[in-house]
């Protein structure tokens, strides 16, 4: 009898020791990220038939489980992905937001000062200092355009670095998860299905969560407690013990932009840029497509509009020496410089296009990139990349492509040679315009403020030969450009065109900030819920500690009692 009691007490001692150890484990991991508190599941030992009935034989540790809720964990993961997306987007958009409004970088003061200088030079067309101020303001204007453009470029460099890092991180998380899958499957093989390697599972959940910060994932259970992980719109990342790699590569047409690819262990690569959803990676890609590229292109369109409209009038005027006006601004699409065109590597040999700004149609300049595709016929299609609307073109002779439907090209002219079906070109009228456009005139006397026009007694206008130093009429026309609605198809001034960038960036940033706040609340709710289920509460653990300590002491007391009983029995014998 005493041995039965002793045995029972020992099972208690062992069980409570496990419980104390688990509590100790919980307390130790109170600050471990992703750690789920664990609990020792106790059950009575098999009872023993002793004739009069079944006698209990103590307690058994049947399992050590973690507090885990599948739904809450999934919730947390998707909230993490959603928050990672908007948070990254908002963080990057705020940078652009700060740039466009910054008085020391923003274009508004530069454009204004430039036109004020035009006005002052027009007031005093013979004044060399006033002309010098105009040239200086022109330099400031073009360097402002350049500065803002390079700020955008710096952000693009930064997100490219980010994307490379994120791709590496995703790859390493995928590897880690695949490794954990291996370990978990191995561990699982040593136990029954109920008994799980809690800490490994926590580690895997943590890895999944960290992965979800970068990209939205879906998790599908597999054999042996392993999982399969799919990213974005179903691209395989982890399949049991195999992990794919995520890499980045320059895009086909623009080396300054990166595509996201998935590479299988066998080396097959596939572009998944457009399939990425959720997480910081998607936030970055969305920022690039929605904020950064449009802002840079719109900035380019403002620069190109100012330069072209100014050139158009300046070229019809005459300078201080009576020489007809030169280009005031130079840059892509003007004079001899062409608009950058990215050529597909699969194009036929000898095919090329030359794209220039159309001085007669500059008000229709559009900020989007355009894709020119040649099909059989030959027929030509110009697709507006930002919304995939397209313009049908026809060769009007000599390779000059003109628009037929709709009948207007977006402020550019296209000349082609040797186009054959299958050729494609990416035309980027505005993307780099802000950086390439700069002042062309450096000699103050070459500013063409005069029109050299006069009326004779019959009211017939004629051109006056020679310098007309006091003539400011071309200057008046140039100054008038400030108020002319010469952008967006003739509906906005230059300032209005720039204001559009500010408002669009502002609206996008503002809505991103609101979305971030909302997602943060949802994430916090999910974390709260997860903490409620899985988190360690020290007070609770302290109470458990007391409880198990007391139980242990009680069980030990049982040994002492059984010893006394044994001693009593021995004493009775002696």
């Amino acid at each position, binding site marked *: 009898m005493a041995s039965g009691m002793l045995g029972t007490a020992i099972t208690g001692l062992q069980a409570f020791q496990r419980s104390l150890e688990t509590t100790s484990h919980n307390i130790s991991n109170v600050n471990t990220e992703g750690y789920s508190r664990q609990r020792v599941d106790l059950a009575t030992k098999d009872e023993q038939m002793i004739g009069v009935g079944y006698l209990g034989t103590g307690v058994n540790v049947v399992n050590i489980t973690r507090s885990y809720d599948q739904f809450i964990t999934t919730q947390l993961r998707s909230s993490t992905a959603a928050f990672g997306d908007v948070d990254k987007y908002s963080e990057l958009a705020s940078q652009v937001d700060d740039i466009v409004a910054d008085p020391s970088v923003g274009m508004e003061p530069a454009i204004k000062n430039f036109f004020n200088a035009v006005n002052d030079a027009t007031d005093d067309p013979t004044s060399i200092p006033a002309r010098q101020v105009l040239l200086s303001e022109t330099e400031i204007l073009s360097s402002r355009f350049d500065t803002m453009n390079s700020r955008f470029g710096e952000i693009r460099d930064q997100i490219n670095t980010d994307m490379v890092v994120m791709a590496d991180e995703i790859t390493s998380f995928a590897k880690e998860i695949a490794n954990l899958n291996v370990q978990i499957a191995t561990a699982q093989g040593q136990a029954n299905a109920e008994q799980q390697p809690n800490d490994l599972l926590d580690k895997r959940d943590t890895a999944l969560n960290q992965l979800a910060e970068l990209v939205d994932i879906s998790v599908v259970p597999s054999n042996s407690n392993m999982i399969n992980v799919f990213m974005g719109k179903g691209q395989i990342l982890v399949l049991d013990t195999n992990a794919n790699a995520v890499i980045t590569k320059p895009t086909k047409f623009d080396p300054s932009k990166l595509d996201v690819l998935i590479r299988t262990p066998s080396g097959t690569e596939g572009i998944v840029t457009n399939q990425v959803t959720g997480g910081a990676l998607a936030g970055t890609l969305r920022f690039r497509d929605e904020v950064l590229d449009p802002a840079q292109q719109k900035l380019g369109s403002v620069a190109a509009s100012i330069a072209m409209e100014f050139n158009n009038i300046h070229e019809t005027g005459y300078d201080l020496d009576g020489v007809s006006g030169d280009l005031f601004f130079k840059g892509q699409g003007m004079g001899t410089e062409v608009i950058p065109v990215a050529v597909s590597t699969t194009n036929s040999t000898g095919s090329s296009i030359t794209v220039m700004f159309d001085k007669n149609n500059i008000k229709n300049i559009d900020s989007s990139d355009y894709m020119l595709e040649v099909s059989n016929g030959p027929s030509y299609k110009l697709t507006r990349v930002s919304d995939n609307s397209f313009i049908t073109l026809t060769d009007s002779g000599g390779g000059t492509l003109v628009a037929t439907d709709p009948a207007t090209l977006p402020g550019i002219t296209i000349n082609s040679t040797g186009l054959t079906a299958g050729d494609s070109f990416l035309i980027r009228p505005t993307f780099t315009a802000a950086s390439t456009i700069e002042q062309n005139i450096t000699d103050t006397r070459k500013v063409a403020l005069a029109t050299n026009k006069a009326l004779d007694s019959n009211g017939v206008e004629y051109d006056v030969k020679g310098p007309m130093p*006091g003539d400011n009429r071309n200057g008046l026309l140039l100054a008038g450009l400030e108020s002319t609605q010469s952008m967006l198809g003739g509906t906005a001034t230059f300032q209005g065109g720039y204001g559009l960038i500010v408002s669009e960036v502002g609206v996008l*940033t503002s809505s991103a900030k609101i979305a971030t706040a909302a997602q943060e609340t949802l994430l916090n709710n999910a974390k709260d819920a997860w903490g409620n289920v899985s988190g360690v*509460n020290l007070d609770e653990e302290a109470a458990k500690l007391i409880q198990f300590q007391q139980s242990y002491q009680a069980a030990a007391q049982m040994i002492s009692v059984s010893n006394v009983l044994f001693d009593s029995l021995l004493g009775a014998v002696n």
Partner: protein
Amino acid sequence: MRISTSWAQQLGVNAMNAQQVKMSKTQMQLSAGLTNLTPSDDPAAAVKALSLQESIDKTTQYQENIEVTRARLSIEEGGLQTAENVIFRAKELTVQALNSTLTLQDREAIKSEIDQLLQEMVGVANTKNANGEYIFSGDLSTTPAVAWDAEVGSYVYQGGVNQRVLDIAPERRVADGDLGSNIFSNITSVSQEANTTVNGVEINQRSVFDTLQSLSKALSAQYEVPEAVISGDRFMRLGADYSAPSTTTFDLISDVGRTLTGTNTLSFSPALDYSGVNNADFNLVVDGGAAVPIVLDGTYSSQQELLADINEKISLSPLSGVIEVDATADPIQFKTLSTEISPTLQITATGNGLTDFSAAAGLVGVGQIASPVTVTLNAEYANLDAVVSAINDPSNGLAAIGIEARSNGNNIEFVSTTKGKESSVSIYDEDPVNGSFLTDFGFSTGVTGKGVDLGGGVIGTKVSEVFNYSASTSSPASFELNDEAGNKQIITLDADYGSHDKLIEAIQNQINGSAIEGKIEVDPSANPITFKSISSGTSAAVQINQVSGDFLKDNGFTSGDTGRVFSKTGNDVLADLDTALDNFLRVRTTVGARMRALDDQENQNEKFIVDIQTTLSNVQDLDYAEAISRFNLEQTALEAAQQAYSRVQNLSLFNFL
């Protein structure tokens, strides 16, 4: 419900973070004084603020333009005031000089002051502004508005042809001055010297400088007969490029009269009788066209009657407006009226009659008309002087037809080398048109300039009919001819001269060898009798005085008739100075109106700026009271969060074990 310890701690940290973010934003708002720090704070307000700021900046620029314009107009107004004072003084002096008791020496004294006034007027016209620009030179603001042109012999306007304007508001522009040509040059004149044409249009304008200059010359008794001039009306100071393939040609003709003159003087005693069977008829042929018959069928008792009837017949024929007969000339003289180059005027006999007008071959045949001289320009000419010397090149032969080209500052003038009413200059484009000279220089084809007669002579009012002064009771008939320099000669007529020609011959014979020889002559062909001054300068005037007899009465002179004396010039100058004064006043009025408009616009702009600034302030400026109370609230909230955190951290069951 249970709380994870680490999460509970995180919650406290989150609460403090949130409060600190809010406080930091309020703090930045306070330090910037702006409600919105980045466009994303309020995109609509950000764009609105941009466009409001742009409006303010633009209007501020307009205010600067107004300042500049006002300063320039003030200078102009000062100049105009000086010019008016010059005119006032010149008028006083002119009135003084018109006093008939003044001697030539007295007038010389006045002349020297007039010369000073002329210089002062030139000084006004060449006023500069603060930037050193000539304010009356329009868009050629680095060139003096007027300069002495030795070739033309007067001050010529050489400024630009457009006035500069400045923006003072959207869609509102104001000229910051006036063209010197409109102020000083194009002044309507009553003077005969002003009888100039520009591009064929008679403008009767003269510059105030020319007015003062002619006054100055008249004061020293110099009267110059102007020559025929045609000038272009485009700004061509910097020449033109006619190098191949732009070679251009044009034609110049000096004699647009294109007359055909008979050889016989007709006698009307007895009267010519062409009535009935005596009809006289002849054909007129212009340019080898159809012969137009003219039939004379009346009885004519004088040359005038005959000529009037021929003109009447022509006006009823297809040649109406193409040909006329000179109303007084004797022998008969046909003229073409057309300004086209008609190389020939032909008169042919069809029956009888013509022999009366003409000797045997007389009018029958082709009349000689002045041939055009064709000028070819085929090089690049750097300036007007180069064009002028190319045209005047002897190889062109302009001297043969008495025309020369000269520059008048901004354009070219074709001038007759002869003076007076006989001079004429015409310009034509060749047919077919070759090159663009006429268009470039602002001529129209067929433009003709004619000289004027300054009246340097006295003309009788009657056609001579009395030729016999031998037996008359009043014989001899004698009269005195004077020039203004005091040269005089008494002409005595005491014979029967028999005809107009003989009478004139007798008079001329007496002039020859006298003190007035080379000064005064009797027109050998004019009827009524005309005495002309053939000199210039101090003696360019003719006065006829009665001595005895009826010569003056017979020929319609009045004793003391004077051609061209100072009073005429003086009165013309007085009238012209009044017109000039009116012109200055008119311009000054417009300057005043512009200054008022500037004030008006300045006030409007000022108010606009204030209004916009108010709106801008509402859009972007921070409400400090609200921001400070918010800041205090946030401070309290942060302190609360911090306290809550520290309290919660102290709550641990372990503390009680």
